[in-house]
């Protein structure tokens, strides 16, 4: 057994490209077979004719993509991007300090990490309804404030963009905290001490030492928040009163009430294309930076 293992490793050592793929093969295979191939079906669907009873009919058309150029849908896309960006920035502003505090909390680290994730082990809908309960006119926040005499009329929170934002941030905060934490955690405290010895003020220490070193975590976190936020649809319905439509709702509706699978697929692929391009451009620029720095 050991001989076989060694022989295999010896063989791999002579084929660097295969060595990489041998490690990645299971994951790549899974993604390819159970994600990309099914997605390929949907891509084909997005060029077919709509069947009025759901599904598609044979044919080839680009009308579903052309339809997306309608200002109506562009407006929806822009609004969604604004929300998603807002959510990302807010998550970063809230998540970074928390991740930093956790990474410097010594023996409490693990406990604090789990406390970040704990709320997410209850169903999203249950949590969201609990938020509704807190925020509604006769909810806990308003009754408490009124009880304290701070306000006389209930503050209208539900149905406002702020409520949607709060819900989005709530839903995606751990996606920001966890990657930042894991990149901060490996940061060598002696680096900070070195910076301190060199006379760096706290702010300078942070911006010149800590932040650059935790950038991979910040980037990973931002992507993991921004992208799902772009596709969210229940939060705006439940907390925003469903009075605005997000790109996620649009897609969802095409597969349900509108029964327009090709348009739903096309809309998804447009959004996915835009996001992937942005991600790809970012990855490229980062690689270039890395080369320039070397």
């Amino acid at each position: 057994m050991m001989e076989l293992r060694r022989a295999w490793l010896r063989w791999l050592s002579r084929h660097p490209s295969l060595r990489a793929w041998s490690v990645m093969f299971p994951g790549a295979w899974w993604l390819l077979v159970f994600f990309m191939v099914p997605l390929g079906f949907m891509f084909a669907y997005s060029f077919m004719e709509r069947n009025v009873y759901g599904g598609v009919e044979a044919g080839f058309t680009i009308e579903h993509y052309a339809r997306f150029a309608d200002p109506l849908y562009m407006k929806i896309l822009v609004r969604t991007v604004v929300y998603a960006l807002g959510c990302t920035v807010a998550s970063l502003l809230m998540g970074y300090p928390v991740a930093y505090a956790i990474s410097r909390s010594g023996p409490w680290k693990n406990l604090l990490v789990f406390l970040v994730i704990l709320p997410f082990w209850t169903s999203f809908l249950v949590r969201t309804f609990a938020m509704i309960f807190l925020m509604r006119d006769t909810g806990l926040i308003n009754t408490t404030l009124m009880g304290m005499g701070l306000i006389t009329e209930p503050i209208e929170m539900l149905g406002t963009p702020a409520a949607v934002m709060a819900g989005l941030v709530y839903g995606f905060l751990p996606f920001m905290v966890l990657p930042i934490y894991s990149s901060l955690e490996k940061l060598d405290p002696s680096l900070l001490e070195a910076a301190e010895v060199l006379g760096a003020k706290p702010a300078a220490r942070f911006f010149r030492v800590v932040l650059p070193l935790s950038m991979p975590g910040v980037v990973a976190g931002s992507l993991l928040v921004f992208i799902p936020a772009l596709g969210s649809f229940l939060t705006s319905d439940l907390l925003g009163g469903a009075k605005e439509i997000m790109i996620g709702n649009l897609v969802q509706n095409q597969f349900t009430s509108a029964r327009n699978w090709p348009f739903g697929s096309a809309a998804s692929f447009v959004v996915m294309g835009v996001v992937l391009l942005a991600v790809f451009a970012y990855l490229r620029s980062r690689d270039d930076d890395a080369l320039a720095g070397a």
Partner: protein
Amino acid sequence: MAEPVVEFNNVSKTFAGQKAVRAISFRIEKGEFFSILGPSGCGKTTTLRLLAGFEVPDEDGGEVRIEGQVVNNRRPYERRLAMVFQNYALFPHLSVERNVAFGLEQRGVPRAQMVERVRAALDMVRLDPAQYGPRPPAALSGGQRQRVALARALVLEPSILLLDEPLGALDLKLRKEMQLELKSLNRRLGITFVYVTHDQEEALTMSDRIAVMDNARVAQLGAPAEIYERPRTAFVARFIGESNFVIGEVVATERGGVVVKRADGNLVAARGGEGRAMGETVQLAVRPERVELTGPDQAPGGQNMLPARIRQVVYRGEMLHVRATLGDGSEMVAAMRNEGQLRRPVVWQEGTECAVTFSPDDTRVLEPEPA
């Protein structure tokens, strides 16, 4: 003659079309302190990694032998070497003693023996096992980490120890101390040391032999005195210590030497240069400390002599460097012992006419550098 411990035969390594190591060959004898010296990017680290097994030579890239066996296809863990990394590479999640025990565990050393050997290894590098053993590496100073890394390597009682710029991160005083300690470990334990460094002084101090690498090749291989006193190429002459260079045309060849005529007509005799043809342009090198200055007319016979004018006297403590300009505007440096400038100042002052003299025996003909 004993079998060499390590042997490189025409070893080449290419990364993405770029030759990192170009057909290099050398042998390392048992118990030797062997240094690989060169500027960054010269291929010295790749050479060490080829020996360690982290890199595999190109398909037709020659062979690496350890103790007579070809090891091209052996993984690092099959080579029974030990290594100290530049950044020490201590496992942050393991205590000092567990770091040191790691290799023993891999080799299946019994528990009781392991504890004993870990303690002995820490003792050997002068770290108190009781005090430092349980600590995490992060709680140690740079010098202490260095010692742990050394203990982790030595505990395996390897026959060959690889060291990749192990002293680079230490301050000067600690570095000097460790240099002597490494050398004495090498002598005491009889382990072959293969030491990679870019610090020529370090290499000269510690090594039995030095391989100077330049541009993916071994530029010269020899004992420190040989490398220093008989540099083969201009690169070696320049990289190790300082050198004065003289360029001229060969006008006479004799056994063991040549006579060269400078552009200004002065003749210079030098050792070496076998096989150089008449009329060929060659470069000669002479160390500053082998150069003397005399009055313009006081040159002794049998010496090379070039008329010059003093340009500058540089005070360097132990030594004085006197820079003189030759007739064609080129410069030569003479290094002389400082006899005490306050009591007996040197006679040379800026603008003084003089003669630069040096013995043909101290003047080497350099080989042209490979393209």
